[in-house]
């Protein structure tokens, strides 16, 4: 019975290590495909956007203000006559860098704390987990707002405030994985040959939790983009001239009845970015999480 279990596990690993099979499974699903296409487009636009943008995103042109979408201005112009399409292209770089930096920072913090908490257990675990509980006690947006408000507007402050509220999810996730893995015989065997705690945590356990982290952080990217836009909308994010999507939606809300395009296009950009990352994350979960794939 036990032996069979071991073999079953070994088979799972063979399957999950087969990159080509994973790629095929991934591309077979239309939603994952949509997700990866949207995300790839976003990344490309973030890189080349400023070079292909038809106008300077800060250039004001009062004669052309609040023009509806036309061939000259694909998404129309805003209240100061700035080209909305160009601003969205520039905003892409801002939103993506916020998302990537925030996710990198919060996964690193969450990963390290989760490993320590799960592997060491005891009082360390108690203290760390009670701290994460404190973060979970508040809604994410409210807490991020409080931190952002305390720090004042600015892109780096936005990133900091979102990272502050994002890491506990990762710490919890990693801890849960570690608790599962740390009682495996091979961890016991590693301890029995005299491997140190740090070594076991980072060389033996970390590679086993990385897939869960990848899925969670991809799913989280969309959430971070939304959160950053939300803070921008509330005036707690990037300061106004910045072509940040949330700020743009906020600036257009006075004209929403007559000049719908001012808010709608940046809003669509936010929607597409969040959707793309969520679809990608779902797709990744389907191929990386072996337990679900078996059906």
């Amino acid at each position: 019975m036990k032996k069979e279990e071991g073999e079953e596990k070994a088979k799972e690993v063979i399957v999950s290590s087969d990159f080509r099979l994973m790629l095929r499974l991934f591309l077979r699903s239309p939603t994952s495909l949509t997700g990866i296409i949207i995300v790839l487009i976003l990344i490309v636009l973030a890189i080349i956007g400023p070079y292909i943008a038809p106008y300077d995103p800060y250039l004001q042109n009062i004669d052309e203000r609040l023009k509806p979408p036309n061939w000259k201005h694909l998404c129309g112009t805003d209240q100061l006559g700035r080209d909305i399409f160009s601003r969205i292209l520039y905003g892409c770089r801002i939103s993506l860098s916020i998302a990537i930096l925030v996710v990198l920072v919060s996964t690193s913090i969450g990963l390290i704390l989760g490993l320590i908490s799960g592997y060491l257990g005891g009082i360390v675990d108690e203290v760390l987990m009670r701290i994460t509980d404190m973060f979970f006690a508040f809604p994410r947006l409210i807490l991020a707002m409080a931190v952002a408000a305390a720090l004042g507007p600015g892109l780096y402050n936005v990133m900091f405030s979102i990272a502050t509220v994002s890491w506990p999810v990762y710490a919890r996730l990693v801890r849960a994985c570690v608790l599962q893995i740390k009682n495996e015989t091979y961890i016991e065997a590693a301890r029995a040959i005299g491997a140190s705690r740090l070594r076991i945590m980072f060389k033996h356990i970390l590679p086993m939790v990385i897939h869960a982290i990848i899925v969670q952080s991809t799913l989280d990217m969309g959430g971070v983009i939304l959160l950053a836009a939300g803070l921008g909308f509330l005036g707690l994010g990037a300061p106004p001239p910045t072509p940040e999507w949330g700020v743009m939606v906020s600036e257009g809300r006075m004209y929403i009845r007559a000049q719908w395009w001012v808010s709608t296009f940046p809003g669509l950009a936010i929607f597409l970015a969040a959707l793309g990352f969520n679809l990608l994350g779902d797709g990744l979960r389907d191929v990386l999480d072996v337990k679900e794939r078996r059906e």
Partner: protein
Amino acid sequence: MTNYLLKISNLVVHFYRYEGVVKALDGVNLRIGYKEILGLVGETGSGKTVTALSIMRLVPSPGKIIQGEILFEGRDLLKLDDEEIRKIRGKEISMIFQEPKAALNPILTVGFQLKEAIEAHSSLSDKEAEDIIIDMLKKVGLPDPRSLLKRYPHELSGGMAQRIMIAMALLMKPKLLIADEPTSALDVTVQAQIIQLIRDLVSEIGSSVLYITHDLSVAAELCDKVAVMYAGNIVEYGSIFDIFDNPMHPYTKGLLAAIPRLGHELYTIEGEIPNLMNPPKGCRFHPRCPHAMEICSKVKPPSIWLNRNRMVACHLYSEEV
């Protein structure tokens, strides 16, 4: 009394479970001499593995070592701090596990894991470490060791994996090797090879072995001495010949009688191993013992040493001392 490599005295281990306290080890006494192979025999759940893990200080939570002393070359392992015991694990005492394939991390190469056993204890260069590893892999009889280093555990058979575990355990030439039923997950044909291999290698290195098994015939083939364990106690200890030719404890007699023989009906010991959350008073074996006396249910039998190498814990022999 330093002529023993390992001397365990009065080791008590409890597991604090939600449902209650499991008294897994109830005052275990054990000695292993230099270059001696001691078989630890008993049913599943008798505490053999817990004894082994206690020596390595790897008793999993919620288990706790309550009292006792484990003297290894005169040092009490239970008093060492984490770093000191880490230095002993794998270098002076190493362990082979029951499920060789489960004991290898599935996502790391065999070579990485073998190298780890060396890196944990010395600062040899990669090249030197690799030479030692390849040399050892040859000794455990694995063909083409160099290509083996790059393989992953799922590519190995159970027998190969166990050979690798043995190689890993012996890399640092430990003074004590603990083998926890290393052959019970393997085919019978491979079993004999592995036993032979362990015997040859430890005699070459000069290690002592604590060989845990539930199979008396395996013990007979390999061991110099045997300790019989029942429900957290060592009930009988002696040389392999003493135990087989002249078993004293009723439980040992039962175990020997239970070895299947062609043409004989299978013998079973009545009853089953007691629930260690609420073990029987006195001798833990008395509810199943055909010779149980009144005293057996009241007083825990003392360890009676008939001579330096022979011990039995049973009231039947109280008068003989």
